[in-house]
């Protein structure tokens, strides 16, 4: 009956509002209510011991003049951008390759997939040990790592965070691209071959355009993942050296659960919500995600 051509078919009952109730209630209790409470807290001074005291705009003015906050936003943006720039080409190429039918492809794909199965915490602990300057990889390969002060210098620490993020998340995006590449109709490649297009031109003029919407999906996931990165920073750098890798999410944690300044932490949280919302809106607008066209044009 779902095949009925009549728009809004008379015999078709739409699910009642009651179906949405559990999800709505869940969302309200665990997202909207806390968000409202955080908004209230951001105008108070609260260390978790006394009752919250009204503090007016104190938290917000402090945030406005806080160099660490500004830097943390910039760092979040930098790490997110690095993530997209590093992961997109690698996962695109791997995904397209894995969509083929080469020998050993299944085995190699399975191996590439492994990092995704590990928890981010385990991955960070592992790399922390591997990158120890005295007993890890740097000690074995000084020609590559110099003195090995990777996590102790600003550029090194940012590089390590980007690398570990890529190491863990590239498999997910590879999987997405693999599925999308598989879905590209073979006739397009056959037609291109008849027109005399080689492998490179086929990739450039058939595969890439067909993967356009997938790229948007993958990029959105990367940006969201990048902005909410926390565990790798907590374990690999703890925001250091100094405040060189204190990204916004980590700064919020630090203010809240290490310094017990929940008012200030709430203000940072709201800034994060605001920034993430703006970024999502911008991405949806720019990519045409809201009016996404079918990927298989011309078929």
């Amino acid at each position, binding site marked *: 009956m779902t095949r009925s051509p009549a728009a809004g078919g008379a015999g078709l009952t739409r699910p009642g509002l009651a179906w949405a109730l*559990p999800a709505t*209630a*869940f969302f*309200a*209790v*665990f997202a909207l*209510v806390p968000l409202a*409470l955080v908004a209230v807290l951001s105008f108070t001074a609260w*260390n*978790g*011991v*006394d009752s919250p005291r009204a503090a007016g705009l104190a938290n917000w003015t402090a945030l406005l003049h806080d160099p660490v906050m500004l830097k943390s936003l910039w760092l979040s943006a930098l790490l997110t951008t690095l993530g997209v720039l590093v992961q997109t080409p690698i996962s695109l190429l791997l995904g397209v390759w894995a969509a083929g039918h080469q020998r050993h492809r299944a085995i190699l794909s399975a191996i590439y997939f492994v990092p995704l199965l590990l928890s981010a*915490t385990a991955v960070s*602990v592992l790399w*922390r*040990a591997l*990158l*120890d*300057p*005295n*007993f890890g990889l740097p000690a074995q390969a000084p020609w590559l790592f110099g*003195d*090995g*002060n*990777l*996590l*102790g*210098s600003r550029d*090194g620490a940012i590089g390590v965070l980007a690398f570990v993020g890529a190491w863990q998340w590239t498999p997910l995006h590879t999987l997405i691209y693999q599925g999308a590449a598989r879905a590209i109709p073979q006739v397009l490649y056959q037609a291109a071959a008849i027109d005399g297009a080689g492998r490179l031109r086929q990739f450039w003029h058939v595969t890439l355009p067909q993967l356009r919407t997938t790229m948007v999906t993958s990029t959105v996931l990367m940006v969201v993942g990048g902005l909410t990165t926390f*565990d790798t920073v*907590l*374990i690999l750098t*703890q*925001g*250091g*050296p*100094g*405040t060189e890798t204190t990204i916004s999410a980590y700064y919020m944690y*630090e203010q809240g*659960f*290490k*310094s*017990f*300044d929940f008012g200030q932490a709430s203000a940072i949280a709201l800034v994060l919500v605001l920034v993430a919302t703006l970024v999502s809106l911008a991405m949806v607008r720019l990519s045409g995600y809201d009016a996404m066209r079918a990927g298989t044009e011309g078929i």
Partner: protein
Amino acid sequence: MKHVSTAPHRRASSPSHPSRAPRRSHVPLTATALACAAALSLVTACGSSGGSGSGGSGVIHVLAYGDAGNTVEKSIVDTFNKTSKVKAVLDTIPGADYQSKLQTVINTPQAPDVFFNWGGGSIAPFVKAGLLMPLDDMIAKDPALKADFLPSVFNTAVIDGRSYGVPMRGTQPVLLFDNKKVLADAGLTPPTTWDQLLDEVRTLKAKRITAIALGGGDQWPELMWFEYLFDRVAGPGVLQKAVGGDKSAWSSPESTKALGLLKQLIDAGAFGTTYDSVKFTDGGSPALLAKGKAAFELMGSWEYATQQSANPDFAKNQLGYSAFPSVADGQGDPNDLVGNTNNFYSVRSTTKYPDAVAQFLKLMYSDEFVKAQLAIGNLPTTTNTPKFLASSASPAYSQYQYDLVERAPSFQLSWDQAYPPAAMTPMHQAVQRFFDGQLDAGGFVAAMQALPTP
């Protein structure tokens, strides 16, 4: 590494703890959620599910930092329960989460009657909020509750002239550890003066050995160098003034001199170049010392236990220890110590059974307590401790430390614990940035002056 846990990590998050596992949720999740939402009192209603309430039930709850040391706490609770009508129940919170969990539960009906803490800044916010019971009345009834502890330790939990804590574990002074073999091979002995230390750094550097292992990635090991240098150059007064709210103490000439000496040591290459990539907590810097890649490490007394579990042979044969060197023309007594004086039991003012609590606290200077602590490698700070030192897990080391603590005119609590928790992160960052060269002496002084005081 059993009792590494007690102090330094309380604020340094341990690398492997997974985030918040739900506690004792036997009720289906949605039901709990709905109930809480209805009550609209998320924090108090859901903070912990009933079990640990202390209302009129003939029970006192004792909250302790969860680690290997709990065996002693458990046996003391058992001893107490044998004779007391009011029963004690021991609750523990796993290490790294302790301070934040305590902070969220202390002002709720589920608050413990007696709880573990580090004295100083760790309880100052509670005292200010009027949540703790001064123990002076108990002490008036039973003077041993104060007199049977070493004063330099007991004073850590005295705030505004009133006593708020009774020592309940072991003392952990910071010592200069060394690798005896590396020193012998270079023809050196542990330095007794700052100039000798500088000389030895140069000698070791010429032999391509990192003079001093440093877990800069943890940040607090770097702080230990500041603590000792300030004490040796200026005496304990600078920090006491600063914590008391007199920020000008940081810009005194002594402060500048101490920072200059430290800068000189860093610039001499004493710590190598990669210390900020190395941590103590993951075994990085202790391994440098044990494997002979470094000659010294300045660390709390738990270094011994750490080495004993990671490199037993090294701990037994090659691990040396000495006091921090003296500084020429310094105003501080060379016998002064810094570190973690001890851990303390404090009492929540709402407890229904203060008399039972007083009886419980008396066990903290009992012979049984001292013997049990010594057996697991902790060094208690009671006056009857020397009687039992021979039964310690490592008698010579225990005796050495006890003598140091007994002799010390001042035993300064680690700065990050003397200040309230809010100061910890900015203090650690300033310390690390000074070591990195990102902050000069003036910048460091300004950062310290910006810290919140109790």
